[in-house]
């Protein structure tokens, strides 16, 4: 019995030691990262810094990786911060390229008239219903009211007298973020919405639920669901590219004046076939 107690005592000490070891590296990590980010921002020769929208950040990181693999002499660093930070930091010269998941605002253009946006990709979300649903067209306002729970019956928008089952995505999802922002005016969908955790799951749920309405990335559209025409504009890639489809946006990389030097080389890579393939792999719509 005494042996056992001693052993358990030893075990506890080991346990605490392990726990302590675990905490130590976690605390030091961020400082290392910050140091790595700051260094290239000071000097521009041979290195390029990018910062801004967290929507564009993942695809920019992949682009930077591929770019550096092709051009071993050039160092590209990508940081987040959000679209507004992206615009501000490029305008004030803290980074070479800013990222924004929206257009440059008029107020920003007034402050910094030299900014030039390059739309590197488009992002669109299609509203979908069950193929048997007679409703094929809605206004943007109706879509918003349905998802906010203000319209709850299909008969209110010209359909059958059936309750609408709203299907949405989990918080944190990029598709949900895009949809909340562009279709719901930054509101959150009704709390009675069914929540699914992927685009694929959304397709399955909507295609097996006759009264469902949901939304998916353009890449997931097929014959098992029906894309809703919004304000007379069908959810097609062409309509996203020509700017007429409402629930879509440009992902921009921004430079001060026309891109020059390294920034120009990088943007040329982004618009190359290889760069645009990376854009599509990340679920966005290629612009070239």
């Amino acid at each position, binding site marked *: 019995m005494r042996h056992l107690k001693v052993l358990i005592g030893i075990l506890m000490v080991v346990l605490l030691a392990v726990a302590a070891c675990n905490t130590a590296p976690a605390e030091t990590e961020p400082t290392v990262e910050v140091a790595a980010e700051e260094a290239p921002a000071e000097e521009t020769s041979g290195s390029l810094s990018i910062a801004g929208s967290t929507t564009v950040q993942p695809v920019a990181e992949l682009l930077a990786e591929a770019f550096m693999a092709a051009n071993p002499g050039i160092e590209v660093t990508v940081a987040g911060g959000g679209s507004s930070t992206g615009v501000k930091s490029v305008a004030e010269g803290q980074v070479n390229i800013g990222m924004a998941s929206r257009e440059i605002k008029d107020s920003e253009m007034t402050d910094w008239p030299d900014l030039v946006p390059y739309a590197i990709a488009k992002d669109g979300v299609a509203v979908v219903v069950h193929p048997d649903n007679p409703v094929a067209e809605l206004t943007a306002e109706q879509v918003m009211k349905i998802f906010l729970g203000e319209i709850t019956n299909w008969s209110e928008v010209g359909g059958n007298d059936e*309750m609408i*089952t709203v299907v949405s995505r*989990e*918080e*944190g999802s990029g598709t949900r973020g895009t949809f909340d922002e562009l279709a719901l005016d930054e509101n959150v969908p009704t709390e*009675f*919405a*069914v929540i*699914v*955790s992927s685009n694929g799951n959304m397709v399955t749920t909507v295609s097996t639920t006759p009264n469902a309405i949901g939304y998916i990335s353009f890449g997931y559209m097929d014959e098992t669901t029906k894309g809703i025409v919004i304000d007379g504009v069908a959810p097609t890639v062409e309509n996203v590219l020509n700017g007429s489809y409402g629930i879509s946006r440009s992902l921009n990389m921004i430079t001060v004046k026309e891109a020059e030097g390294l920034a120009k080389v990088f943007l040329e890579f982004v618009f190359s076939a290889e760069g645009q393939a990376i854009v599509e792999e990340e679920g966005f719509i290629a612009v070239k």
Partner: protein
Amino acid sequence: MQIRRVVDRSMTYLLLFFALVSILIVFLIGIFTIRESLEAWNEVGLLNFLIGTSWHPTQGELGILQMIIGSILATFGSLVLGVPLAFGCAIFLAEIAPQGIQRVLRPAIQLLAGIPSVVFGLFGLVVLVPAIRKIQIYGNSGFSILAASIVLAVMILPTIASITEDAIRAVPRSYKEGSLALGATHWQTIVNVILPAARPGIVAAVILGVGRALGETMAMIMVIGNSVAMPRALDPANPLTIFLSQARTLTGNVAVEISYATGVHESGLFATGVVLFVLIMLVNSGARALIRAGGNH
């Protein structure tokens, strides 16, 4: 002689070491989960986390009461549906069924335990949910606690049935013979002698079922709707319609949201895991207490 003693001693310590390692693993998981959840506790406070009913983690609203209730309702529903079925199976197999039927029935029930939960979920999604949708009550989408309870009932059935059967078989033969000798019928013997004698094992069987039901994830998220709203009776005049309400379980909350969660959101999901951990520990220690109380007489 010496070598035998040495081998004997070292095997004792080796086995002790294995036992301690398994405890250590549980400890490490517990410590890690709690450490990751601290940010969420700090953000909203433990009490607000437990009694809050608004879950919008990207806006800093972390309340999981509706999910605790969702988990409890789904588990309760599965017990109401699954326990009588499992008991019936177990009594039939242990006491009534002839050898030939036993040889078919027992493997069939055990097979049920081997079916992956995603298959149950798929069955629920394409069969149960559309069937439940036919119930004409406004607000009924088919995705419901009822669908979850039915799926869970089938999933916990083999666990409860096989442990209950073992418990019944473990009752000494002399009890049964004594009861029959006193003139009791077979059914009277089962109800008044065998089942009471097997009680600790039966309680353990039900508790294991509860543990499985609380922890089930994949099948749940496919049929329960995962809404963040508090479950509510669809027809206020009939409280039972709460089972037609959509809900989200604690396990579902973690599974649905973990892929893109960062910062406080991620921490809130770990905190959900801690609550689940504590809930299951409570259930298990409750079971131990019940079994001990039952074993006293």
